[in-house]
C-alpha cells in the first residue's frame, strides 16, 4: 500500500478509500461527452475534519483534488483531468438547521436537492427551495457552485443568488466561513453588509475551495401550483411575451421549450408558465392577470393557451421533472448533452434557429429548453442533443454541434454556463484581460500549488 493510500485510509477508514480499477473507471467519467481521465484515489469522507485532513495531505504531496457531488453537470467538471483524489461528498448529507421564521436552511456539502425537498415537505410544508430539474441526486453545494437554476429562478435569480452563507475548506485545509455566519450564529446573508466573499468560491468549480456547508434561502410554499402553456409559432414575439409575463409579477417560473416531435409541436414555442396560490381565488386572480397580459397576442392570432392534459400537467408540475432525464433515452442510447449559455431573452429566436440548423447539419435529435432568469434579465438557453452511447459517430456529431454552439453563444453575447474546459479557455480568451488577471490573482493566492480541481479556470 502506498503512503498516500495509507494516509487516506487513516483519515476516512479503509472502506471509504479506493484505488481499485472499478472506482477509477467510474469516477474517470461523467454522463456527458468529455473524454475520461482516471483519478488515483476516490474517497468518501463523512466529516469536515476528514476533508481538512485530505486537503492537507494533498497539499503536502501536491496531489490534485476534485470535489464531486452527483456529477451531473455533464460538462466534465468533476473529471479529474490530472488524476489525484476525487472526493465524493454525498456521505455528508445532513440537514443541520432550518430557521423557519428567517427562512433559511443549513445543509452539509453533499446534501441532495431531493433530500432537502423531501425534508421540507414533511417538516416545513410552508417552506420550499429553488429545486432544479437536474436529477434529485444533484447536490445543493454543487448546484450553487455551478450557478444552477431552479423553479424559483424567475423570481429570485440564479440558485447561487439564494445562498445565505458558506463554510469552505480552503486549499490550505483551513475552514473559512463566508457571510453573516463568519461573525454571527445566524446564517442569513452570504455577503451584505460585509464584502461578499462568496464570489471567491461560487462559479469556480472547486478550484478555490471545497464547500462543506451551505445555507440556502427558503421561500414561501403556496398550497397550490398550476401550469399553463402559451403556444406561439412566432418566435420573434417570445421576448415580448416574456416581458409582459414578467411584468405581472404573478408567475412562479417560466420555461420555454421547442422540439420537433410530436409533429404538432414542431416550429412552435411553448411558453410554460407556472403559478402558485394559497387559495383558488389567489390562483384564479393570478391566472386572470397572466391571461390578460397576453391578450393582445391572442387577439392578434399570434398564439394561444393550449389545453394541457392531466398527464402532461403532472409531468410538468413534478419537482424535479424526471422527464428531463428521460430525454437521454430518446435514441435508446442513454445520453444527452447540452450547452446552456446565459444570454439575453431577445436572443431567443436566433438560438432556436441555430439549434434547428445544427440538428439538421449533424442529423441529431434536439430539444430546446430556455429558463427565464430574474424578471427577464437573462435566460439560460439549453441547446440539447440526445445521443446513443453505443454509437461513437453520433457522439462525435453531438460534440461537433456543441462546439458550434459554443462559438455561436459568444458571438451573440452569451456567457457559458458550467463551461467545459474548452469553453473556459474560450471565455478566458474573450474576457477583459483585467478581469482574467484578477481571477488569476485570486486563484494563485488561494491555491498557490494549483491542487484544486486543476485544469479549471486556468490557461493550459
Amino acid at each position, binding site marked *: 500500500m502506498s503512503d498516500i493510500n495509507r494516509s487516506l485510509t487513516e483519515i476516512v477508514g479503509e*472502506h*471509504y478509500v*479506493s484505488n*481499485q*480499477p*472499478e*472506482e477509477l*473507471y*467510474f*469516477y474517470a467519467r461523467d*454522463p456527458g461527452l468529455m473524454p475520461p481521465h482516471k483519478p488515483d484515489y*476516490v474517497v*468518501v469522507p463523512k466529516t469536515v475534519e476528514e476533508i481538512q485532513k485530505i486537503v492537507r495531505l494533498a497539499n503536502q504531496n501536491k496531489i490534485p483534488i476534485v470535489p464531486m457531488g*452527483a*456529477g*451531473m453537470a455533464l460538462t466534465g467538471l468533476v473529471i479529474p483531468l490530472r488524476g489525484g483524489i476525487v472526493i*465524493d461528498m*454525498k*456521505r455528508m448529507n445532513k440537514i443541520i438547521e432550518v430557521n423557519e421564521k428567517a427562512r433559511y436552511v443549513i445543509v452539509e456539502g453533499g446534501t*441532495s436537492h*431531493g*433530500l432537502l*425537498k*423531501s*425534508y421540507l*415537505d*414533511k417538516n416545513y410544508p410552508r417552506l420550499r427551495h429553488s429545486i432544479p430539474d437536474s*436529477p*434529485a*441526486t444533484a447536490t445543493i453545494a454543487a448546484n450553487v457552485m455551478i450557478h444552477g437554476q431552479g423553479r424559483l429562478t424567475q423570481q429570485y435569480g440564479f440558485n447561487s443568488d439564494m445562498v445565505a452563507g458558506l463554510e469552505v475548506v480552503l486549499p490550505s485545509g483551513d475552514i473559512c466561513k463566508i457571510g453573516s455566519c463568519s461573525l454571527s450564529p445566524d446564517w442569513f446573508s452570504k455577503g451584505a453588509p460585509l464584502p461578499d466573499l462568496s464570489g471567491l468560491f461560487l462559479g469556480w468549480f472547486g478550484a478555490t475551495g471545497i464547500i462543506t456547508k451551505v445555507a440556502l434561502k427558503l421561500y414561501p410554499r403556496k398550497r397550490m401550483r398550476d401550469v399553463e402553456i402559451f403556444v406561439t409559432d412566432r418566435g420573434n414575439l417570445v421576448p415580448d411575451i416574456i416581458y409582459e409575463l414578467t411584468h405581472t409579477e404573478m408567475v412562479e417560473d417560466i420555461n420555454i421549450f421547442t422540439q420537433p416531435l410530436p409533429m404538432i409541436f414542431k416550429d412552435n414555442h411553448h411558453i410554460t408558465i407556472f403559478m402558485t396560490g394559497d387559495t383558488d381565488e389567489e390562483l384564479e386572480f393570478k391566472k386572470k392577470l397572466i391571461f390578460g397580459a397576453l391578450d393582445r397576442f391572442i387577439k392578434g392570432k399570434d398564439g394561444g393557451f393550449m389545453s394541457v392534459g392531466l398527464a402532461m400537467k403532472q409531468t410538468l408540475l413534478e419537482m424535479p421533472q*424526471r*422527464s428531463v*432525464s*428521460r430525454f*437521454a*433515452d430518446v435514441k*435508446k*442510447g*442513454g*445520453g*444527452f448533452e447540452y450547452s446552456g449559455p446565459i444570454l439575453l431573452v431577445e436572443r431567443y429566436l436566433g438560438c432556436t434557429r441555430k439549434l434547428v440548423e445544427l440538428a439538421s447539419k449533424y442529423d441529431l435529435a434536439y430539444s430546446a429548453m430556455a429558463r427565464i432568469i430574474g424578471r427577464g434579465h437573462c435566460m439560460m438557453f439549453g441547446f440539447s442533443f440526445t445521443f*446513443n*452511447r*453505443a454509437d461513437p459517430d453520433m457522439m462525435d456529431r453531438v460534440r461537433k454541434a456543441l462546439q458550434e454552439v459554443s462559438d455561436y453563444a459568444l458571438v451573440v453575447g452569451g456567457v457559458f454556463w458550467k463551461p467545459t474546459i474548452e469553453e473556459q479557455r474560450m471565455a478566458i480568451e474573450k474576457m477583459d484581460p483585467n478581469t482574467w488577471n484578477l481571477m488569476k490573482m485570486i486563484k494563485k493566492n488561494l491555491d498557490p500549488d494549483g491542487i484544486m480541481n486543476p485544469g479549471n479556470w486556468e490557461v493550459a
Partner: protein
Amino acid sequence: MKYEEIIHRCFRCGYCKLTGDYVDFNCPSYRKFRFETYAPGGRMWLIRAWLNDEIQNSERFQEILFSCATCANCVENCVFTFSDDLVNIFIAAREEMVNKGVIPSVVRDYLKNIYVHGNPYKEPANERGTWADGTSIETYDGQEYLFYIGCVGSYDERGQKIARAVGNLLMKAGVSFGILGSREGCDGNEVRALGEAGLFQLLAEQNIALFKELRAKEIITLDPHAFNALRQDYPGLGGEFEVYHYTQILAPLIQSQMMPLKEYRARITYHDPCYLGRHNGVYEVPRKILSSIPGVELVEMDQNRENAFCCGGGGGNFFTDILGGGEDSPNRIRVRQALDTGASVLAVSCPQCAKMLEDAIKVEEMEHRLEVMDIAEIVTRALS
C-alpha cells in the same frame, strides 16, 4: 450476455438509488459501501466496461455485482423504459460470471450446497420437515392447500418458529392444508438471483413435477422469496398454480371473524419484505391483519411500501453476507429506522427479514426496546 442491448442506455442519473419521494438513498449496497459503483447506475456502467474488456472480473467487481440485494428499488424508481429489467440485468451479469466460474467463494459454496444437499445448510433432506414435529400438521395428501415452507423456514431455528406459528394458525382456522416434509425441495429463488440459471431450472422443474404429481393446485408459501419464485418464475416453466403468501390466507379469515382476536396493546411498525412488496405488490394485506388486532397502533417508517428499505438479505445476501458488517449494513439501518417510529415491535412477514433484523437488533443493543415478530407470531399472541 442477456440484455446486452440495454446496458449502454443508463444515463446514471441516480433516481434508481433514491426512494420515490427522495427521503433518502434506498439502495442497500449503496447505503453500505457509498461508492457510486455499488449503486445500480454504477453496476450498469461497470458491466458495460467489463463486456468491453475495459475492466476485468476482479474480487471487487464480484463484490459490486453480488452485493445487489435484488430489492427492486431501482426498478421502482428508474425513470427509463427499461427500468423493469434492471434487476434482471444484474442477474444476467451474475449468470455470465457463474458460467465462467469466477464468483465469490461464498456464492460458490451456497450454490454447491443447494446442488449437493438441496439446501444451503448441508442438512439432510429427511430433516426438512422436523420443524413440524410436535404439531398436528399433516403431510400433503390432496388437501385444499399445499403449505410450502422453503429452506429458511425448514432449517433455520428462527425460521422454524415462524413456520410453526403459521402452521398452527392455519390449523386453528380450520384451513385444509398439508406440507411436503422431507419431499420438499428448495424453491430456487436465490439460486436464480445468484445467477445459476441451470440449477434454478432443475429445482423448479423438480418442484413443479412434484406439485403436479400430488395434484396440488393451490399453494401457500411461508417465505416471500418462495412466493416470488412460484408466482413469477414457475409459470414460465409450466408450473401454473394458485400461489399465496400466508398473510393472504390469514387476512380474510381474520377480517371475517373466523379468527376472533383479543386485545394486544402494542405500537407496531411493519417492514415490507422486498419479495412480497416491490416484487409482487403485496403491501396492504399484512397491514390489514395488524390493523385488525384490537389495541395495535400501526405506525409507519418513513421508508415504507414501494419505498421500503431492504433488510439486506435479498438476492442471496442472507446466505452470503456480502452486505453484512458495520453500522451501515442495511439491517442495522433498518432497525434504527424502526426504532425512530417509537414502535416496540418490528413486524415482518418473511423469515429471512426476521433473522436479518433480529441480528441487527442484537448488534445495535436494542433488545429491550424493539422486538422482531412475524405477523403470525403477533396474531398468535392476540389469540391467546
